[in-house]
């Protein structure tokens, strides 16, 4: 009964600011909710199905990988759920179930766990799996074909496809307000501009993402699009259009600033975001893909370690 009083001995510091991975992942899930909610309102039960299937598959995949690699089971920290959710946000609501399952498995297994799990992924896992799907089954990633049976109150054509094929005049009737309110087709959670911006501001305020990356990306995308537009206003749509269509906003707030695959020093963060913005616009306006955000994310992820070598001099480092 009277066990000797025991003290807990550990290394300093004995205070912690209370942050943890779980809070961070669930915070990001909450931040994504407005955009997902609008997707569900627009596309109904199929969207719910895709989101739930993706999250469930991601959690199961994480559990199996944890067991296979003999590590602590980390499904409760919310990271797997977050990846599943982000994947679902990028795909059309009518995506067949097996594509959802394969895509989510690619995200968690190939995108994350083969590199060593959370924190060790050199690329954003969702960008990896989405590009694999885009290359392997382009038909399922085509929003126009996927959403052809929907009766929507707005123009049911993917804006970026329209702009690419027919030029500025074809997208003239997409007003900025329409785009902000999500009156465009696209992935389940990637079209609601206002919702994504609100989520992004929340993430920046909570310091879950680094604002330098988001803002430099958006600013450079805007400026590059503007430059294209000024050069040939008929062929290239304006900067506001590019800012609010495709994966621009979800990329800016949920894909690019993913911590493991992005830099941490001020100057590298600005270069990283700006490079992604320029690349996105080059791919959209000159390349063969309609949207360039995912490829741009992968490309800047690739140079992240090099960029982060640009760093301030530590105290006492001589020469």
């Amino acid at each position, binding site marked *: 009964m009277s066990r000797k009083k025991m*003290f807990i001995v550990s290394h300093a510091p004995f205070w912690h600011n209370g942050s943890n991975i779980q809070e961070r992942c669930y915070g990001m899930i909450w931040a994504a909710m407005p955009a997902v909610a609008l997707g569900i309102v627009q596309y109904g039960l199929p969207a719910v199905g895709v989101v739930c299937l993706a999250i469930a598959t991601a959690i199961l995949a994480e559990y199996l990988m944890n067991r296979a690699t003999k590590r602590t089971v980390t499904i409760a920290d919310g990271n797997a759920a977050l990846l599943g959710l982000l994947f679902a946000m990028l795909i059309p609501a009518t995506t067949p179930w097996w594509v959802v399952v394969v895509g989510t498995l690619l995200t968690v297994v190939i995108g994350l766990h083969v590199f060593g799990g959370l924190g060790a992924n050199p690329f954003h896992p969702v960008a990896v799996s989405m590009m694999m799907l885009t290359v392997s089954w382009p038909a399922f990633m085509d929003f126009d074909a996927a959403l052809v049976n929907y009766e929507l109150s707005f123009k049911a054509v993917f804006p970026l496809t329209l702009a690419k094929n027919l030029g500025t005049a074809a997208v003239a009737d997409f007003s900025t307000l329409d785009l902000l309110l999500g009156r465009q087709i696209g992935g389940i959670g990637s079209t609601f501009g206002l919702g994504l911006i609100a989520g992004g501001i929340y993430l920046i305020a909570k310091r879950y993402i680094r604002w330098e990356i988001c803002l430099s990306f958006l600013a450079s995308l805007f400026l590059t699009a503007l430059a294209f537009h000024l050069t040939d206003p008929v062929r290239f749509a304006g900067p506001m259009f590019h800012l609010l269509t495709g994966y621009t906003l979800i990329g800016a707030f949920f894909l690019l600033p993913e911590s493991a695959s992005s830099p941490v020093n001020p100057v590298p963060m600005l270069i990283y975001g700006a490079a992604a913005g320029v690349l996105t616009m080059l791919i959209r306006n000159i390349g063969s893909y309609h949207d360039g955000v995912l490829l741009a994310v992968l490309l800047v992820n690739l140079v992240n370690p090099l960029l982060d070598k640009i760093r301030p001099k530590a*105290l006492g480092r001589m020469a």
Partner: protein
Amino acid sequence: MMKQLQSQSGASVFQYALLPQSPLPAETIGGNGKATLLIEEMFEKRSQVDLTEGDTVQTGQKLAPFKTSDAYVISSVTGKISAIYPYPGDFGSHFTAVDIEVANDEMAAPIEDLEPTLEVLQAYLAEAPGKPPLHLLGDPDRPIHTIVVSGVDTDLLVSTNQYAIRTEIHAIAKGIEVLKAAAAPETVAIAVPRDLIAGFGHTGADVLKAVSPDYPAAHPKLILYHAFGVEVPADKNCEDMGYAFFSAESVAAIGQAYDTGRLPIEKLVTLIDKQCRVKVITARLGTPVGAILKTAGIATGDRDRLILGGPMTGTAIYDEKLVVRADTDAVMVQDAADVNLVSDYSCINCGECVHVCPTRIQVNMLVRFLEAGQYEDGAELYDLLSCVDCGLCSYVCVARIPIYQYIRLAKYEMARVSAVAEASDES
């Protein structure tokens, strides 16, 4: 409550607290009939030492029992030696512990005539409260041109030196006089909290420097960098640059010794209770921590954490029997509910540590090398040795990696390896 405040306000606003305008006099706390003195020398066999159980010692008596070493301790009590045994410290250090049963009648050891010379200082005051780094003085290979009397405490909540500089200014002035006579430094500077900058004109110091209240500005390397404009190279110490840092308390102890002719035996200790309330008390060197906490009315329970030092850089101890030593500036008790533990996540590269590091180390990269045991690469590529041991990186770590522990271990291992290498070079 304090902890919650801090977790919400974030690390960048961490500030050293000031004691009230006129701090209450320090309450004196005694042991409960037992004291343990620690001598900085490994105890291997009984024949090494001149002391035995049953010997009597007097207050202020110098105990230098080793035939082969000058290591000593000043007895803080009068009584009978009850045990002598080896005592392992942390990071591979070794001590000889001397337990003393305190007698009822106190006897003061005969007073020596203290001359203000370096030899006398080193022979009697190296173990004085505050632990003056007297071994740094008088080394011709590494001359000290500036003595910095530090009236600031490096860790948060710890107020020992701030208390000393506010209440023992006359003793400090005397101490500075003695140090000037004994070591003849070119300059004696005094470093004080920025908000207390007035009122230090009569200390005899040549220069007065203000230290910012932002943690960890009171670390010696950062004081040199910000207040003196001296950047210490990562692989060097302040003393390599000619600066010796003396805590205000240690200088006061020197002054007190020369003023009174007695060797000081009472240590100022900041007590930090579970609600992070701070109280400065004095206790004799060698008093068990448990006795101090009991007298001060601070209860400890199972699974609490008991810390010598402050919340960011202190050392957690396992037993209330451990004692106050010359460099024990604070005793902190943390409630079991507030104890935070580390996780086995790897770094997620969130960048908080890089953002918070006062010496601009790329902690996110460094910790990857340290986890893999690649200490030399860590030092060469990612500035391991620039670290000033403030602990902020661990404080903000989202993945709860014990970064500061990795850093301490890495530095210790590197020092050990280079010591072995040097030894084999010489032989």
